[in-house]
């Protein structure tokens, strides 16, 4: 672990001056508590991750997929973390850090609602007041997560600007932070934002690969040939890769959302995908220099993915750097393939994956014969939050693996 503020050309701290002192304070806290385990911070963090969060999560051998693909497939089960996704690893770390720093209030943005619920849970657990910013569009498509945040005692502030999704929610949270920075910590939900966030969030998420690497050694007897993770902002990705980066023989694949197409509509400022690593270019967004979906003038594009949690125009700077360095392969999978993979895992392995994670599984499906003899796929979250979306999107398509979903109309009324 180190406190890099840049990764090659990426990273940095492109934020309003008003936030800089807080960011310096945070950098200092990060170095002391996280990197140097001052006051036993990391010990407490790890203990809470275990007892409250349910870690370690299993590395499960997937029998049916292994047989189907003639490759040993192992699933890292982050869907079993409390709250249903890897997001708690980071949220718990940051809220605990804010407590050590003497902050009195937590704010966070959320897209799919997973980071928001994770933050709300961590705040309830640690007794911190919490407000979550969430775009109106996302609120409408992720209702159960809105309920969960409120039930955990968090305020949910609807964001009505722009298209009402993650990008706008982040901007709005930064505005709150610029006003309340003295007492408030902003829990960013991925490896994005100004330094030290990208490195810090990676370090909190690195527990995934710390466990997985050890578990792989035990189960496979060696390191895996390939490791796959979906990439939105890239926190589950960096968490899953971190401890494998030095293992040069392990192939690392960051699977982005290909959406409905990789091409863009400059006129409307819309990219029908969220593949910033694969198709974006360098720019500055939300505090960091990284790869972005932007038009030729530098205006940020509306991204799109069937999976709300991947629906973001940027990506973590360290991940962008690792892709430039060719240590990580940036690949992508479209909406259809992700939905298909969702159904496949649900039916064949009895695990309902998040639509985000389904992208990684979709890549496995399409490229299993190029990934070597053993593959670790990070199942970053569970798909309970996605049921309504999946039913709706499946009914619009002719998918290979989808079950007949007509029962949903027969019983208990329509959608």
């Amino acid at each position, binding site marked *: 672990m180190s406190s890099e503020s840049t990764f090659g050309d990426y990273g940095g701290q492109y*934020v309003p001056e008003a936030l800089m002192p807080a960011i310096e304070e945070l950098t200092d806290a990060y170095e002391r508590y996280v990197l140097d385990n001052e006051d036993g911070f990391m010990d407490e963090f790890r203990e809470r991750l275990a007892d409250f969060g349910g870690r370690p999560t299993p590395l499960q051998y997937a029998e049916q997929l292994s047989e189907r693909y003639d490759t040993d497939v192992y699933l890292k089960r982050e869907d079993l973390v409390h709250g249903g996704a890897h997001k708690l690893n980071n949220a718990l770390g940051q809220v605990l850090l804010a407590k050590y720093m003497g902050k009195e209030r937590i704010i966070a943005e959320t897209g799919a609602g997973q980071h928001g619920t994770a933050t709300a849970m961590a705040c309830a657990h640690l007794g911190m007041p919490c407000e979550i910013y969430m775009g109106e569009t996302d609120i409408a498509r992720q209702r159960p997560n809105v309920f969960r945040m409120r039930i955990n005692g968090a305020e949910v502030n609807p964001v009505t600007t722009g298209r009402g999704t993650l990008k706008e929610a982040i901007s709005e949270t930064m505005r709150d932070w610029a006003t309340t920075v003295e007492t408030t910590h902003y829990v960013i939900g991925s490896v994005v934002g100004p330094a030290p966030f990208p490195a810090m969030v990676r370090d909190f998420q690195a527990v995934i690969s710390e466990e997985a690497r050890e578990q792989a050694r035990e189960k496979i007897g060696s390191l895996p040939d390939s490791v796959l993770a979906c990439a939105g902002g890239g926190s589950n990705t960096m968490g899953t890769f971190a401890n494998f980066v030095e293992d040069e023989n392990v192939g690392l694949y960051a699977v982005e959302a290909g959406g409905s197409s990789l091409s863009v509509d400059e006129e409307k400022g819309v990219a029908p995908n969220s593949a910033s690593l694969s198709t974006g270019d360098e720019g500055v967004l939300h505090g960091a220099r990284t790869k972005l979906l932007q038009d030729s003038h*530098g205006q940020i594009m509306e991204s799109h993915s069937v999976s709300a949690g991947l629906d973001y125009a940027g990506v973590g700077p360290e991940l962008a750097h690792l892709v430039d360095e060719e240590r990580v392969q940036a690949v992508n999978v479209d909406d259809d393939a992700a939905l298909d993979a969702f159904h496949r895992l649900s039916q064949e392995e009895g695990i309902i994956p998040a639509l985000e994670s389904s992208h990684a599984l979709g890549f496995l499906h399409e490229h299993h014969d190029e990934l070597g003899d053993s593959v670790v796929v990070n199942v970053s979250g569970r798909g309970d939050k996605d049921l309504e979306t999946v039913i709706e999107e499946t009914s619009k398509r002719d998918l290979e693996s989808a079950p007949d979903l007509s029962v949903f109309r027969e019983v208990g009324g329509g959608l």
Partner: protein
Amino acid sequence: MSLEAVFADEPAFVPYLAAGDPDYDSSIEYVEALARGGADVIELGLPFSEPIAEGPTIQEAVVRSLEAGMTPERFFEFVEDLDVDVPLVCMTYYNLIYQYGTEEGPRPFVERAAEVGIQGFVVPDLPAEEAGPLREACDEFGLDLVFIVAPTTEGERLERMMEHVSGYVYVQARLGVTGARDDVSDHTEQSLARLAQWDVPKAVGFGIKTGDHAERIVSAGADGIIVGSALVDIIAEGHENGDDVADVAERLETKARELKDGALRGAQNRPQPEGK
């Protein structure tokens, strides 16, 4: 006239508008009206899709301008088309500066800005730490880079920052984002006191709405006042009501005069400046 020189004789009135709000032609009228109303420097916003430092008023102006087709290139044409006699400062976010032209980095943008006569920049998401490349390009083309000093900017950090200042310092009157407020923050006086040791013009912004505000802030020691949202509000209202552009322009001119007059009154009942 250099930016710094503007502040020399009397308190400066520095209005902000988003260029192209609500459309190109009206916006030209509005900027010119502000000049007529007594503007000493004009901050022209080049709209960015993610204006993280702006409150709702300016966010909406940004949306109007972008929807009406504003682009960096159009912005430069806009500046060329303007018939005003005061220094212009471009306020925008770093990504637009960074992306302009074929070459990477801020140089092409600065070069083009210099060409159309822009005299300086304010970049709200570019703290001193990241300003190196832009600073260099500004130096090359003789433009000022204005930094914002926030209520939270103190001690060593403040000292480091003041080394980079050119033109004037933008003193952020209170924490938060842009937007007109009914109060004038206590932070203003404290901030001005913190900055007293540096001999550079101090323009105070964030939340100024009326001539009275302007008066109080100048009498507290500011060398200038920066006003954005209170003016953008007038445009928004006119736009919504479908008012004549000329009427709106006149309202802007009147408001500008009120603010400038307030600033001038403030200068009169100001305790005698010590060093200057």
